[in-house]
């Protein structure tokens, strides 16, 4: 029994938080939004800290649920990202009527992700996956009175349902072939049988949808643009990150022997994602949409790391997701402040931003540099290691394309930098007032961007766990 | 001693001796079909006249008394009347749905017959998930109502259908939970298992208070599920004319009518099976002689007796309670019945685990 509490500590704590929030909502006392937010943030911090310090690994429920040090780390990364998003959306939620619900939904998806990551059984995996994606659709529709919000939600749920349909069809075929849905047994049962490969490809396609790799990316931009900005950042960072974690686990451990089959598929997905993401990102005017496409291209880079298919590849992917959380959230933090306070979201609006908001400009600039992979920000290290992991397979055309795509991506990141620093604007965005929470979150993000790369500890730690 | 199962076995034997197996099977099927249709028609006729007589009795009046002895052939006459009435399809309606809806209602009612044990060893299909099957198939009936209401191109129909949809689905929950109470006690979903587990006493007696609560909830819920007063929101004539079948006439109307009565029969049969032991005779602990006497009464009589008792109960409700408003109706379910039945299920589980039942 104590094992149960120890192994599932992260999940249980999260559940407890969800219930505390629910009780707050149900209690007869009307909580002020401000207090709710304070409580939530404190709870999330406790959650993060507890996740970091409590150790205990093993498997539960007849090997349905497993906990390893690596999974703990991955969950802690997601916890951290959620905390950051929570802090960033402080201003937005203060004005919003349904702050508690936002957290209920968001933490439910987080719980789903945890279960998805910890699953060692396709059934558990599927349940976690759906718990992680269905509430997200509701979140995407969180601005109930905005037309685009519900449109985004509709697109998200449709594509997500379609993706899980594909995934499930694959799983059912795989069950037909092997007669098992447990990871451990699948690992031994994996074979070159055509039907197995077919089902495997369907599963990959399902994954592709969830991480929005090209050609399964069509929903991404619309959903990102339409959703409220906190949700967009959550979608692009946490949701995607967790899917990538899950994907590495599944590909490396369960289907590790099939690498010859999936290597090419992943490589093609990577190249397409990078190129298409980049080409579309260049054309975008809306910053959210722009970040959506840039995140597609980032997925391409991540997939290159996945093709590495070794300890370095996996640790690079995890490391990159960590960095990606810092960088993207720093960018989204600025964006959400500007958007919620001033309602401006296009690149043109950001012209002359430096004149009025130098600090935010630097934060955004550092975030974008990190996304573009410019040293000394952590993004450089992340991308470098990803591509290096991919190069381990001696597929030099692939990494040349990747390296050149970094240049293209730099172009559009620099567009925003240019708009902020260089372009003149008669009506720049006025000075944005910040509360403590966004400040804190951005400080953490920037610190993360600056430190995580130069100090090699994070990567070494991840690598030691992966190994 | 004669019993239905003996008749069935002898027919089966005779057929297999006379014809080759395939033909015998087909003939058997035909016989089963005809029997079911006959049962259906009979049930319809009987229940209609029963209702009218019961209501008359409760209201201290004569009721139908012209056709046949004491008006016993009244429903037959009504059938003839309905047969010669024109079955029209209103203009502007969705023709396909409109015409298919009564079929769906009939099919559902008919399908529900499959796992009902009418007598000892007399059951069409003793499938291992009998109870689940009944709850699953019975919830399809709401589709026929919605189809009819939607297709009619009539606001009354639509409103009636929506109300009835809301009502049926709501009460299905408590009905389901009440059924589950018995499933927990028996540990099986098979109808025959459930009946056999009541050989030494019916669940309503063995299961203490929780079983009685379940029974009460079940009866209330099925009354609502079958759209009967006091829950007849769907066809509240003072509000919605005739609800979802306002636009139906002639035989199509008759089919709905029939399906509804058959549904009443089936839910009561289910109630009888679950709580009152189905065809099991009434036994009391160690009273051997009494038990023996009870065994002499044929199982089919036990079954139909219990079922018609429940039907009578439901008819009694109709003439006793005033109709609820839709909000009261939903309140009753969501705020009282559902929480109570959920809690009750826990109690039942406790009893089952502790083995407190007899």
């Amino acid at each position, binding site marked *: 029994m104590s094992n149960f509490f120890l192994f599932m500590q992260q999940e249980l704590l999260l559940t407890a938080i969800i219930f505390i929030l629910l009780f707050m909502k149900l209690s007869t006392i009307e909580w002020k939004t401000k207090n709710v937010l304070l409580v939530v943030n404190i709870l999330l911090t406790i959650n993060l800290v507890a996740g970091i310090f409590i150790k205990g690994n093993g498997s539960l429920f007849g090997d349905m649920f497993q906990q390893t040090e690596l999974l703990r780390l991955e969950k802690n990364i997601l916890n951290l990202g959620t905390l950051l998003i929570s802090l960033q959306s402080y201003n937005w939620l203060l004005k919003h009527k349904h702050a508690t619900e936002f957290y209920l939904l968001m933490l439910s998806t987080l719980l789903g992700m945890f279960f998805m990551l910890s699953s060692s059984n396709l059934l558990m995996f599927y*349940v976690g996956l*759906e718990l992680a994606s269905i509430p997200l*659709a*509701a979140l995407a529709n969180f601005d109930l*009175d905005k*037309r685009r919000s519900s449109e985004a939600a509709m697109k998200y749920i449709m594509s997500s349902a379609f993706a899980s349909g594909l995934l*499930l069809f694959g799983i059912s075929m795989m069950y*037909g072939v092997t007669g098992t849905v447990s990871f451990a047994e699948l690992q031994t049962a994996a074979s070159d049988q055509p039907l197995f490969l077919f089902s495997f490809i369907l599963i990959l396609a399902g994954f592709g949808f969830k991480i929005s790799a090209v050609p399964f990316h069509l929903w991404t931009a*619309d959903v990102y643009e339409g959703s409220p900005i906190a949700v967009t950042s959550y979608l692009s960072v946490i949701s995607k990150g967790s899917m990538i974690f899950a994907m590495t686990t599944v590909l490396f451990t369960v289907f590790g022997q099939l690498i010859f089959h999936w290597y090419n598929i992943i490589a093609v997905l990577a190249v397409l994602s990078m190129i298409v993401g980049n080409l579309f990102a260049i054309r975008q005017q809306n910053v959210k949409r722009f970040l959506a496409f840039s995140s597609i291209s980032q997925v391409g880079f991540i997939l290159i790391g996945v093709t590495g298919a070794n300890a370095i590849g996996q640790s690079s992917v995890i490391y990159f997701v960590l960095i990606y959380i810092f960088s993207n959230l720093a960018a989204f933090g600025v964006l959400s402040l500007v958007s919620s306070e001033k309602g401006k979201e296009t690149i043109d609006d950001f012209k002359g931003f430096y004149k009025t908001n130098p600090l935010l400009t630097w934060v955004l600039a550092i975030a974008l540099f990190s996304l573009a992979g410019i040293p000394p920000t952590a993004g450089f290290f992340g991308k470098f290691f990803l591509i290096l992991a991919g190069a381990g397979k001696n597929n030099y055309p692939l990494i040349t394309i990747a390296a050149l795509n970094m240049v293209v991506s730099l172009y559009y990141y620099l567009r925003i930098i240019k708009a902020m620093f260089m372009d003149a604007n008669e009506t720049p965005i006025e000075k944005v007032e910040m509360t403590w929470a966004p400040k804190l979150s951005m400080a953490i993000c920037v610190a993360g961007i600056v430190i995580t790369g130069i100090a090699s500890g994070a990567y070494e730690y991840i690598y030691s766990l992966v190994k | 001693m004669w019993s239905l199962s003996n008749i069935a076995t002898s027919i089966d034997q005779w057929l297999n001796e006379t014809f080759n197996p395939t033909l015998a099977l087909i003939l058997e099927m035909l016989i089963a079909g005809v029997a079911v249709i006959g049962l259906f028609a009979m049930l319809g006729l009987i229940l209609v006249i029963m209702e009218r007589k019961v209501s008359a009795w409760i209201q201290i009046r004569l009721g139908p008394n012209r056709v046949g002895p004491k008006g016993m052939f009244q429903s037959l006459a009504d059938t003839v009347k309905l047969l010669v009435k024109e079955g029209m399809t209103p203009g502007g309606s969705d023709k396909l749905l409109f015409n298919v809806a009564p079929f769906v209602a009939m099919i559902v009612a008919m399908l529900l017959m499959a796992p009902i044990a009418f007598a000892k060893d007399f059951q069409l299909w003793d499938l291992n998930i009998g109870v689940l099957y009944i709850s699953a198939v019975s919830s399809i009936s709401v589709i026929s109502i919605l189809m009819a209401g939607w297709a009619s191109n009539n606001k009354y129909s639509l409103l009636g259908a929506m109300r009835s949809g809301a009502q049926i689905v709501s009460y299905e929950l408590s009905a389901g939970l009440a059924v589950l109470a018995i499933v927990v006690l028996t540990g099986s979903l098979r109808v025959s298992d459930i009946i056999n587990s009541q050989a030494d006493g019916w669940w309503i007696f063995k299961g203490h208070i929780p079983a009685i609560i379940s029974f009460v909830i079940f009866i209330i819920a099925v009354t609502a599920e079958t759209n009967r007063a006091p829950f007849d929101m769907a066809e509240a004539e003072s509000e919605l004319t005739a609800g979802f079948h306002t636009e139906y006439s002639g035989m199509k109307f008759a089919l709905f009518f029939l399906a509804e009565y058959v549904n009443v029969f089936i839910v009561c049969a289910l109630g009888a099976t679950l709580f009152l032991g189905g065809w099991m005779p009434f036994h009391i602990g160690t009273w051997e002689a009494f038990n023996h006497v009870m065994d002499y009464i044929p199982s089919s009589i036990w079954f139909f007796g219990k079922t018609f008792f429940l039907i009578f109960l439901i008819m009694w409700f109709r003439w006793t309670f005033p109709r609820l408003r839709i909000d009261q109706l939903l309140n009753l379910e969501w705020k009282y019945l559902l929480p109570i039945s959920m809690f009750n299920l826990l109690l039942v589980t406790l009893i089952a685990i502790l083995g407190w039942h007899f």
Partner: protein
Amino acid sequence: MSEVPVTHILFVSTALFFIGMYGLFTRRNMITMLMAIELMLNSVNINFVAFNKYLYPDKLDGIFFTIFIITIAAAEAAVAIAIIINLYRSHNSIDVEDATELKY
């Protein structure tokens, strides 16, 4: 009576799956699209049950999976319909072609 071979069932489920997919891609009514998705999920259910019954009768994984898929599909449908209702309120239409606020 002779049993239905598993291939027949698989044929049905696969057909159902691709009908669902086709419906999803060609239909423009959101409810219809949702139904198409449900069709896909149900084909998966059929698959699981069939495999479980025919190939691995001593295991229960397939049945469990089916139950969970049914539940989750229900949850998905609930959320999707809520969203569609909300969309209908703002767009006065449930045709995806009308929901074009967001474009490339």
